[in-house]
């Protein structure tokens, strides 16, 4: 499997707030790495051979790479917007391809069945047409004008509303979603999924949020997001195959899946195939 293209990307490898001098030992694309604070309190990532790896600290997380990233960690402009609360949700390990974890995050059609009475409920199962594009300048996948009826869209939402979403894939194992923000019409809450590929069929998922919500206690916000993600986890660990099939024919998309179709096309175009299955088996 050619993983060169993905080697040069940034990946989350830990929460900066939880890092100490002792550090944490983890894995990135099959390679053991150590993430620790150096004597000056800066994050340091080293490979097994003692090789010092690239480091960046963004959005509460430490980012690193086995290769040589050509760009900084992708921008999330809302991370610098005043008035937002930033929420480190913490890590959850999932026995699935990192690409499957991202694809599930881009999907709304499962809400009524997997996040029942929270993000969706029968009979409100219809996915209306939305717009999908690969933005060439930023080299990102974008889905906009995504709408879905939700019984309880966020911790701050009371009662059902039609929520609007935008989805963004700025890196092969990361996605950022923007959703209607109940307390502040006109603004968007930001929920990101940063996925650390441990192996092609195993990943650590680090959700992160930047919200306009001064009311809800932090722990409630964390529990809400953990609830949603743990409902997904039992699905992700039971998909066959574990790897994401990139060849058409193995799985059947519909109009509701256009974001995933664009994501798979974009992965293929860039040869982002770590965690992908290329030949139908």
């Amino acid at each position, binding site marked *: 499997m050619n993983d060169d293209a993905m080697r040069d990307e940034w990946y989350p490898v830990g929460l900066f707030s939880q890092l100490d001098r002792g550090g944490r030992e983890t894995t990135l694309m099959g390679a053991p790495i150590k993430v620790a604070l150096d004597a000056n309190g800066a994050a340091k990532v080293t490979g097994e051979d003692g090789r010092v790896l690239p480091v960046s600290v963004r959005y509460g997380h430490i980012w690193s790479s086995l290769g040589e990233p050509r760009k900084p960690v992708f921008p999330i402009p809302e991370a610098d917007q005043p008035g937002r609360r930033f929420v480190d949700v913490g890590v959850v390990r999932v026995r699935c391809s990192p690409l499957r974890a991202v694809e599930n995050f881009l999907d709304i*059609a499962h809400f009524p069945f997997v996040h029942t009475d929270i993000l969706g409920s029968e009979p409100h199962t219809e*996915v209306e047409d939305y717009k999908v594009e690969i933005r060439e300048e930023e080299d990102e996948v974008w889905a906009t004008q995504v709408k879905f009826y939700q019984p309880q869209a966020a911790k701050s939402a009371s009662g059902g509303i039609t929520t609007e979403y935008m989805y963004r894939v700025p890196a092969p194992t990361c996605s950022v979603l923007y959703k209607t923000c109940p307390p502040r019409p006109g603004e968007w809450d930001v929920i990101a999924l940063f996925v650390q590929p441990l192996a092609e069929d195993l990943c650590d998922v680090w959700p992160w949020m930047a919200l306009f919500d001064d009311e809800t206690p932090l722990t409630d916000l964390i529990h809400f997001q953990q609830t949603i993600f743990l409902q997904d986890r039992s699905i992700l660990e039971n*998909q*066959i*195959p574990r790897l994401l099939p990139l060849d058409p024919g193995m*799985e059947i*998309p519909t*109009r509701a899946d256009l974001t995933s179709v664009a994501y798979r096309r974009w992965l293929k175009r860039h040869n982002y195939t770590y965690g992908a299955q290329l030949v139908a088996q």
Partner: protein
Amino acid sequence: MLSDKTDTWVPVALSQDLPTGQAMPARTLAGPIALWRSQSGRLAASADRCPHRGMRLSHGFVRGEALSCIYHGWTYSQAGRCLRIPAHPSLTPPETIRVATRSVEEAGGIVWVADGEPDGKPPLFEGYVPLRSLTVRAGGSALSAATGTKAAVEGFVWRAPGAPAIRLLPVPQETGETLIHVLVPADCGVSERVAASRAAESLRRMAERIEAKEAVP
């Protein structure tokens, strides 16, 4: 794949373990299957994989005469045809969206599945009724050694001390494990059935001990 095996009936579960309106996982040599029984009591078996996103259909739910995937609610008939895609309620799914099905028959309280089209009916074990199924982490040779009888796939009778003579139906799994259906004489009372169940547990311990020893180089 063991093609010479595909036209034979394989006992995959006991009828009592699959009530109406439920789905359960099972296996044949051709892979995992979703076994389900509709509201009207009809049995169906399909590949354990929704063609949409690969989710295991045995995790799904049965409403009326159809099985739905737990992931996006795609709904399939007993013949494997997709009837409904909830994300597109007004769409009639094209005929081409289907899940592969298997032949399934129920006989003597046992559910039999075949990957192909077998000629005859599944066998009946006169005078016996199914008790329970259990999975043993051991193959046929360890099972034969533990019972002192050849663990034939068409079934064999074994008598443990203090328990009635029981009939065992071993089903080799591609994992190297063996699924065993335990049958008891139809006239057994409650205490004899409990004794037979405990005897089967003892047999599993013996067979697994033998298997573990054989595995040591």
